[in-house]
């Protein structure tokens, strides 16, 4: 197991290095930040001074190396727009996104998997057909439209839910969370629901397909022949067996939601990472973009590692080979 983790860390290192080069070159190609930083009527002298201050007069490889050097010291640079350290900026926005994403992904899994299993267990019942119809809807309806509908129905017409923002927050360990207050929770519901819709449909489909297949398997037949109740068969045998593909998708979805909850955050004016990255792209805030993309790469690596460890926990056949 230790060897496996070491190997994964080694791979992670390579990915991070490759990612840093890619990100740096990519962002370099996007545009010249000087045009944003300096007002157009600045003199040539000021221009040259600012360019030199940010090291933009150096060749690309030189800029990259000093960028890597700064990262190694934990310095991701300062945001051009907010004029504060990027790492601080990202960390200040992270809890909001984390909260929203976890709420969405947990809802999708905790509700989606059981009803997906039901749909797979009784594939021909009207309820199952209704569940599948909902999941098709969840796949096909664009997120932004669903979000707007949620706001229109629950916030505008019904007036029972807030339309945007995080609401009241409580500080816990120095970090602000909104799910701990009633008002914050009310603010969380609609965006989380909106964000969960696609994942919810995905979990339903996966759980249903896995359950349907397993219900015909000899494992289930043998368990039934031993007199196990249907509930035990589903909860102890089937759930364990379908959990491996589910964990894979859970990990991927958790990562992509954390990184790219942009649309939902924009619609519900949720002050999270997604909004930050969109704002920094429009204003060509280069340090924020670079640091954010590096952060996303790191996030996926960590989540993938956790998923792999979860496999080993779930499937004893994998434990042996890596022990």
């Amino acid at each position, binding site marked *: 197991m230790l060897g496996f983790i070491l190997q994964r860390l080694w791979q992670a290192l390579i990915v991070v290095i490759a990612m840093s080069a890619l990100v740096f070159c990519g962002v370099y190609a996007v545009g010249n930040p000087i045009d944003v930083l300096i007002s157009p009527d600045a003199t040539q002298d000021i221009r040259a001074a600012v360019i030199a201050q940010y090291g933009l007069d150096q060749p690309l490889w030189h800029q990259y190396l000093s960028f890597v050097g700064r990262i190694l010291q934990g310095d991701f640079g300062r945001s051009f727009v907010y004029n504060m350290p990027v790492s601080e900026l990202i960390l200040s926005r992270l809890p909001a996104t984390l909260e929203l994403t976890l709420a969405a992904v947990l809802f999708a899994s905790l509700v989606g998997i059981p009803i997906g299993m039901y749909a797979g267990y009784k594939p021909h019942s009207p309820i199952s057909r209704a569940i599948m119809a909902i999941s098709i809807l969840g796949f096909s309806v664009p997120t932004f439209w669903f979000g707007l509908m949620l706001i229109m129905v629950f916030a505008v017409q019904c007036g029972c839910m807030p339309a945007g923002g995080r609401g009241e927050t409580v500080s816990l360990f120095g970090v602000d969370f909104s799910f701990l207050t009633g008002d914050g929770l009310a603010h969380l519901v609609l965006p989380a629901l909106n964000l969960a819709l696609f994942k919810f449909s995905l979990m339903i489909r996966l759980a249903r397909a896995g359950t349907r297949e397993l219900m015909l398997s000899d*494992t289930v037949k043998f368990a039934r022949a031993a007199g*196990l109740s249907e509930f035990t068969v589903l909860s102890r045998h089937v759930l364990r067996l379908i959990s491996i593909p589910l964990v894979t998708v859970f990990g991927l979805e958790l990562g992509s939601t954390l990184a790219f909850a942009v649309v939902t955050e924009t619609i519900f004016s949720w002050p999270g990472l997604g909004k930050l990255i969109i704002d920094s792209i429009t204003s060509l805030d280069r340090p924020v973009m670079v640091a954010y993309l590096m952060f996303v790469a790191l996030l996926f690596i960590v989540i993938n590692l956790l998923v792999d460890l979860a496999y080993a926990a779930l499937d004893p056949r994998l434990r042996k080979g890596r022990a």
Partner: protein
Amino acid sequence: MTDIVTRSAAPLLEVTDLRTWFPSGRGEVKAVDGVSFSIAPGEVLGLVGESGSGKSITGFSIIGLIDDPGRIVEGSIKLEGRELVGLPSHDLRAIRGKTISMVFQDPMMTLNPVLSIGTQIKLALEAHETIDAADARQRAITAVAQVRIAEPERKVDFFPHQFSGGMRQRVAIAIALLHRPKLIICDEPTTALDVSIQAEILAEMKELVSELGTALIWISHDLAIVSSIADRVAVMKSGNIVEIGPALGVLTRPQHEYTRALLDALPSRAKPGQLLLRGSGIADAPPPPRKSATANLPALGSPYLVIDNAVKRFEKPAGLFRNLAIKSGLSQPLTVVQAVAGVSLTVRRGEVLGLVGESGSGKSTLGRMAAGIIVPTSGTIRLNGQPVMSTGRAPKKITTRVQTIFQDPFSSLNGRMRIGDIITEGPLAHRLVNRAEAPDYVRQWLAAVGLDPTFANRFPHQFSGGQRQRIAIARALAMQPDVIVCDEPVASLDVSIQAQIINLLIRLRAELDLSLLFISHDLSVVRHLCDRVAIMYQGLIVEEGLAAAIYDNPQHDYTARLLAAVPVLPQGTETTAAE
């Protein structure tokens, strides 16, 4: 069985006119259609039939586990006088595992791979009683010990993949026995196992049921196995029992024509090398003429395919750190499996060499090396003096004169290609035929293997297992080979289909002067078909010689054990299954 079952006792189970149907697009599939029989307490009933005869569905009907949309449309199943048909699912569940339990064919598939043996036993215990964790564990240990698994305290914490096939089946039997049921339905419980393991399980099962007084329904396609365990035998054909009676009577003096046909199809009851009775029924057509030169081939009977000291090791690819460690001498290469440990074998031109061994003996790996599919780690394989595979970093097969027929005709044929394309793919690539001749070439080969020549436009899924195996044979022969490596070509087929394929191989071999390397675990098939036999054990050939000599007078211990483990049909005398 030693103890005589008292026929006068009230029946434990009485099945009357059972009909289990499956609605399908084209009307009802009558899987079981009017089956009646009864079992006395402690009796062993063998239920024999070919695939699709309804024998498994009969078992599932009794235990109340018919998959949707199938249902019992008529008939009655009485357990100690209590009607089971129409019982609410809750009451049926209370009977399952408690009074009637079931053991399935493939222990790989039946045990849950992600739960430990102890957990699975605990779940089965909790299904019928409330029990605390410590008690459950103790009971699990006892149950595992009862089916003769050594070190039960340690083994209950094992997962299924840590057991061999035979051990897994023992665990399944332990679970079936947990609540001391009155009836166990065994659905081909030894079919997936090696003969020696099969013999052990059979013997243990016999002992256990006579000890516990459990009645058994033993479902099998293998008449010899059934004859060694059953008191009575019922022969099923298309949803009906055509003959039922005492085992010895049914198997030595069969009354029904179908039972006789089944017995006639067995290679163990025919003279070696002869066509099997009732196995033919195919219009013989000559194979198309060969294009490849046969002029410089050695005479029949001289050495042809020569395997010289072949070794095959499989190594796990090492990761970066391991590689560094190996290079610096800190670590060894990861788990190495030595599948073939230095084998020299000669197939003479025109002969059939049988390669016999149990699973894991390396026989398939050797066959693949002989066929030029995988390259040996060391040693050479030459055909008529020429190597079968090239050497270098990326070795390739360099001859078309060796072809292969695989075991599973369902996975060896590409389901998205038409039969005609499957057969001509190789010959076209190697210019044995041109595009214009191809359709005619396919028709000739289809006729030669006993298929309708107009089938060329169909897809593999439109054929039965036996027909697919014929297609696989046609595909191999269309390459105009001299040697064919047959890797268990009849293992997944019913006896009557097996007889047809064996007859086909006997005929084609004579017509085409083929040499066959015939890999099989089935000793009776090998004896029937092969001139010489090589016995393989743990990667080595332990004995080699003329078929008759080896079967009548085995020299090596392993060969003797292997032969003794084969269940034998009664030949008008007492059952002769050996331990």
